[in-house]
């Protein structure tokens, strides 16, 4: 293969490469080798580790996929397709660092359900992807392995916390990736890097085996080049898991086979909540969404402004509850059983303090402190309890909105990717960058970010589509439709 052919092969979608594998025009060994080569050459720091160990790693798995294909025993469309996972997915025998000193050398003896499902679908694991430390961040700049660069503009952040996942897909070093999203951590980096990112309905994808950020918000979801790819990946990872008590029993439709597009807009009623079109949204981002709204109307959709009256509480409620849960989930890192342990301690208490003091970065500590503050005896009623009440009100807002609309449409983020090294004067300001994404986590509903438009500097923008719980397919239809409108716009 010459460089052009390589570039063409690398830039194929998941569906595209799967078709070539199916026709055996290319082997999994070839595409996997190509991906590994590109990972080594990349300067974007998307990967924390590459699966090329002594056991043969990705290439050995690719050879097995190829022999399955030869024998006509293909495991399906993902068989032999190289992909990567955010480094919070545990895989037996493979380091799972969460980009933290605390887990720098942690090798779990168990495998996340998502990773198992992908393995049994034949997908090839290329490696583990960079992220904010323990997912505490939204720019993949709190990683101990350094920040991930945005492949569209390398002096800009990739977003976060699944920034490595978005960057890998954007730079064509993986045909898709799976990240985790507790407050926009899949959708916001997808928007920043110009790829598709989806947070499914809470409970649709098993949480077993990925390191939890905030348990009542966490969902794993695909990052991909196209909506079709997203549907393919989601079909592979969704479904009830007896190991996750919050996992849903509802049957999983074939998201890929059932995928429809712009023709669906004729039957869609779409609401645009005005609370996500206000002054906190940058003008060009707002205009970008307005433009899309016009196109959707042209395509036959009913598009209206609507209101989510309690939207103003969403970011605070999310920050309070997620920090409380985060603090709790982080309590296990005491240096006793696994993970980093400080040296030179004098007592258990001393070991505990030093281990946590040295093992965690600033943003992790900030969220732990805030979490514990909001749960303490004197503050619980003012913070945690109030936030839970607000969450209930927000859930009700969405329930009512979905009585009138099939879908809600917002920007995926209020801005585009900011320059690397940007220091927000106030941590709360940085947190507001997730304002468009967090409500879907509060309400547990499916949401997708699909690329639409760019700013003057050429940095991509994403638009977010939300639907009622378990209407993951609806979200995909709409996103596919938007993709089609984008193609029409590009060629028209």
């Amino acid at each position, binding site marked *: 293969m010459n460089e052009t052919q390589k570039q063409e092969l690398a830039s194929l979608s998941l569906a595209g490469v799967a078709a070539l594998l199916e026709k055996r025009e290319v082997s999994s060994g070839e595409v996997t080798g190509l991906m590994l080569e590109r990972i080594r050459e990349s300067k974007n720091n998307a990967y924390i580790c590459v699966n090329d160990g002594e056991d043969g790693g990705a290439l050995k798995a690719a050879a097995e996929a190829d022999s399955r294909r030869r024998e006509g025993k293909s495991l399906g469309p993902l068989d032999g397709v190289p992909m990567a996972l955010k480094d919070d997915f545990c895989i037996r025998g493979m380091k799972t660092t969460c980009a933290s000193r605390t*887990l720098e050398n942690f090798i779990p003896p168990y495998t996340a359900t998502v990773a198992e499902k992908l393995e049994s679908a034949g997908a090839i694991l290329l490696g583990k992807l960079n992220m904010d430390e323990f997912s505490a961040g939204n720019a993949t700049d709190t990683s101990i392995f350094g920040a991930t660069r945005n492949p569209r503009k390398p002096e800009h952040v990739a977003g976060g916390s699944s920034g490595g996942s978005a960057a890998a897909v954007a730079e064509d070093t993986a045909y898709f990736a799976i990240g985790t999203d507790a407050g926009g951590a899949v959708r916001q980096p997808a928007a920043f890097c110009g790829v598709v990112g989806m947070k499914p309905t809470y409970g649709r994808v098993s949480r*077993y*085996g990925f*390191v939890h950020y905030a348990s009542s918000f966490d969902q794993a979801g695909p990052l991909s080049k196209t909506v079709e790819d997203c549907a393919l990946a989601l079909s592979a990872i969704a479904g009830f898991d007896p*190991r996750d*008590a919050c996992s849903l029993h509802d049957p999983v439709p074939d998201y890929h086979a059932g995928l429809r597009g712009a023709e669906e807009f004729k039957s869609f009623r779409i609401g645009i909540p005005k609370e996500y079109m206000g002054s906190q949204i940058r003008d060009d981002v707002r205009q970008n969404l307005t433009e899309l709204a016009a196109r959707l109307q042209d395509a036959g959709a009913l598009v209206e402004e609507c209101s989510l009256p309690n939207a103003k509480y969403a970011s605070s409620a999310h920050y309070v509850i997620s920090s409380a849960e985060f603090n*709790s989930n982080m309590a296990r890192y005491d240096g006793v059983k*696994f993970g980093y342990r400080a040296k030179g301690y004098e007592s258990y208490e001393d070991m505990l303090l030093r281990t946590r003091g040295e093992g965690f970065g600033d943003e992790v500590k900030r969220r732990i402190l805030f979490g514990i503050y909001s749960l303490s*005896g004197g503050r619980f009623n003012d913070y945690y309890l109030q936030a839970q009440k607000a969450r209930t009100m927000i859930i009700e807002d969405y329930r009512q909105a979905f009585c009138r609309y099939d879908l809600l449409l917002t920007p995926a983020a209020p801005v585009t990717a900011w320059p690397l090294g940007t220091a927000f004067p106030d941590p709360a300001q940085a947190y507001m960058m997730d304002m468009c994404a967090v409500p879907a986590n509060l309400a547990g509903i499916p949401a997708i970010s699909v690329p639409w438009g760019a700013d003057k500097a050429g940095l991509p923008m994403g638009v977010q589509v939300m639907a009622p719980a378990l209407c993951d397919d609806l979200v995909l239809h709409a996103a596919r439709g938007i993709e089609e409108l984008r193609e029409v716009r590009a060629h028209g």
Partner: protein
Amino acid sequence: MAEANTAAAASEYKAVIGLEVHAELATDSKIYCGCSTTFGGEENSHVCPGCLGMPGTLPLLNRKAVEYCVKAGLALNCKINPFSRQDRKHYFYPDLPKGFQVSQLDLPVCQNGWLEIKSGDGVKRVGINRIHIEEDAGKLIHGAADTKIDCNRGATGLIEIVSEPDMSSPEDVYAYMEALREILLYTGVSNCKMEEGSLRCDINISIHKDGEPYGVRTEMKNLNSLSAAKAATAYEIKRQEKVLREGGVLFQATLRWDDDKGLNYVMRVKEHADEYYYFPEPDIMPIVVTPEEIRLIRDTLPEMPKARRERYRERYGLSEYDAGILTVNKALSDLFDQAAGAGAPAKTCANLIMGDVARLLGEKGLPPEQAPFDGSALAELANLVGEGAISSSAASKVTEMLFEPVYAGKSPKAIVEEMDLGQVSDESALREMCRQVVADNPKIAADYRGGKKQAISALVGQVMKASQGKANPGMVNRLLQELLQP
């Protein structure tokens, strides 16, 4: 006991006592994972990533733990909450792998029950505030140079039974623990092996003068025997009285009881309420118990020991003492019920169980559930005694044989025949034996004739010996009296 009562009566202070009892549930697996709950085993052999709190693992609630909690609640007259919830209770300790214990804060499975206990000559009701489920912690093994952690016990299911402060003496504490243990054993909720730590209690005590407000409360942690709980309570009441009498001030404190030395130590003085940063456990769905489930669990409740004792007295005419002994253990009590229920003489059944059966179980080191025979064998044996077919000493021998593996599965009748233990009730043969014994013991015979009536028992003994225990003692007694008539 009499002494303590006198002391309490003499005191100008009244004690107010409440207990928090932790009982390990008799489930086969732990409360949030499939690991075994078998006691002991090599350190950290009953563990998995889940109960070691490894990142990414998730708890799965063992529904049996909820069922057992409901069962305990029903046996303790509690209201069962149709909707309850688990909460995370945070604290750092090396034996707590996740950094939090999953427990229940404001919505426990059971609430508002009561337990009747013996108190003085009467009975009294101790209120049960709540019963909730939670997970146990691991165990620290302190060595000379280091401390090791064994997580085998970690995440084993517990219920915590919180009483109202309705007790007022060490005897109340003992009676409450005894009654509670009985109920937990009868329901099969816990094996209550205090030596394995599967039943332990924290005791809250305050004292005050009549008519004055309640005093400052202390909490003694982890009492793991009934006698220790009683002794620790007596000690703490006296200690508080002494402090107050001498004009001192009591602090709210957590205390540790040293059972060997018979005194307690202050572990820490509490200045503030404990801070555990509770919040609802997001990884476990709320616990829903339907009326149908409650009904099904209620149907499985066995007759409680108190009801059994009453029935034994009323139906079988047993003494309160006998009824009490028989019901201490459910398996022995079941054995009695099977035998007496089959129509065997009840008092004889009771005597066999309380005597030889209990003794032999002890000697063989067998728990009563593993007695090598059932109620029907016992009934047969009791009937043989009742009919006069064998003597009580022969019955002892048969009981012994029932414990021998070579006689496994054999009926008492078969054993009696095989060992020729049948009682001799042949009057002429017995009269001949008696005549011989009287002739061989002229001195004793003369004593009897001279008015020392009790001398006859020595002669009965000789006849029994001569007959190798097979003579019918009643007949021997009568025949001897006839022979010795002047």
